[in-house]
């Protein structure tokens, strides 16, 4: 659905739910997920409804993902880093991760 306007950044390898994704330096995690065509990054804690990155500026909290083992991180505020492990977050977060 999304297309890059320019691809200036160098490739950055991350994994999402164990699958290799090629992001670009300067991408946020949320942007990398959208470009990779991942249509939702979490489901809500109460009704289990799917959610995708929305505001992309730290306000809506819809892009929450588990990054390097830490849950409920805002994907739109975290730049990708080589080797980063991203997991989609289903329902309520598990305490302790």
């Amino acid at each position, binding site marked *: 659905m999304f297309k890059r306007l320019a691809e200036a950044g160098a490739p950055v390898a991350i994994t999402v739910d164990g699958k290799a994704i090629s992001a670009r330096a300067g991408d946020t995690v949320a942007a990398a997920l959208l470009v990779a065509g991942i249509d939702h990054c979490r489901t809500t*804690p*109460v009704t289990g409804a799917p959610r995708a990155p929305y505001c992309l500026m730290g306000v809506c909290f819809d892009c929450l993902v588990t990054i390097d083992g*830490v849950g*409920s991180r805002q994907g739109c505020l975290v730049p990708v880093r080589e080797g980063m492990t991203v997991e989609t977050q289903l*329902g*309520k*977060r*598990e*305490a*302790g991760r």
Partner: protein
Amino acid sequence: MAASDYDVAVVGGGLVGVATAWGLAREGCKVAVLDEGDRAVRASRGNFALVWVQSKGLGLAPYAGWTLRSSNAWTGFAQTLKEETGLDVCFQRPGGFHLALSERELEARANTLKRLHNQPGVVDYKTEILDHAQIARMLPDIGPEVVGGSYCPFDGHVNSLRLFRTLHTAINARGVSYLPSHRVETIDRQGGEFRLTTEKGPVRAAKVALAAGNANMRLAPMVGLLAPMKPERGQIVVTERLRPFLHYPVTTLRQTDEGTVMIGDSKEESTDPTGLTLGVSATEAERAVRQFPLLANVNVVRTWSAIRVMTKDGFPIYDESETHPGAFTVCCHSGVTLAANHALTIAPMIARGALDKSLVAPFSARRFHVQEAG
């Protein structure tokens, strides 16, 4: 007697007031609940929602029995509310813990409970002191600093915001008139009825039940009663929703039916509900992490402070006026725990027009009069 607007005017639209009003409506009374407006200090929106037994009654043994009576009535109370409204207040009574983070804290807890249970005539709370290993069998996520604690099988908790909504739904369904923005200014007894003046005009009622929390201090003398209060501020920290991991409420921390963890139990002498003392929240959070280390990197989504309704000695006040027959006080700190008693025991007494002394005599504010206390 004049034709009053209502059989009973309940002053106060918080948990104590609406629980009492619901009980009165069930007895067939025509009831009005007089509440303040949106600027009121509202303890019922900010509480911690424990239905708590294990530490209640040191210094006034009958309070232990009174608390246990309400705790025992809670299952039926919640069930009846569900039948009337279709709403589930999520009452659970798995038993509850108080956790100690040092041998000194554990010893202090054990001494408190021993003194409580050594009082003559006190009910048995079946509270046990447990060591770390015994607690870890029920709360596997406790940290190494938890040296022990106490467990009481009667403790429980509820979704108190839903309780509040459910009681309002229930009184509405039973035809109770809820009158917001009716802050009561004066109460007079004339011609066999009470006349309450409010910012929205007067209300007439045959009886008055004062359930206005800390404001009872101002109102009670208008009907020849006494309600000495000592308001306290408490702060609560709330985490994001987490998968269920904590299956028992703890004095200072509980996981709600919706997954959030509430951390609380601070006490400050303040009547300002608008501020937060960061050091207090930080201390609460730090102790919570020592009790349950897996909370260390969990996100906090809300903090708030609220004013506790607190009588001067911490025990409830139930009274009927001798100078103004038909006027009652229903006043306590534990509006959640005692909601079942207020609805099922106190309200029928008010409907009959007389408190049952065999149950509530120890809770008269006469105890604050050194000379008059018998």
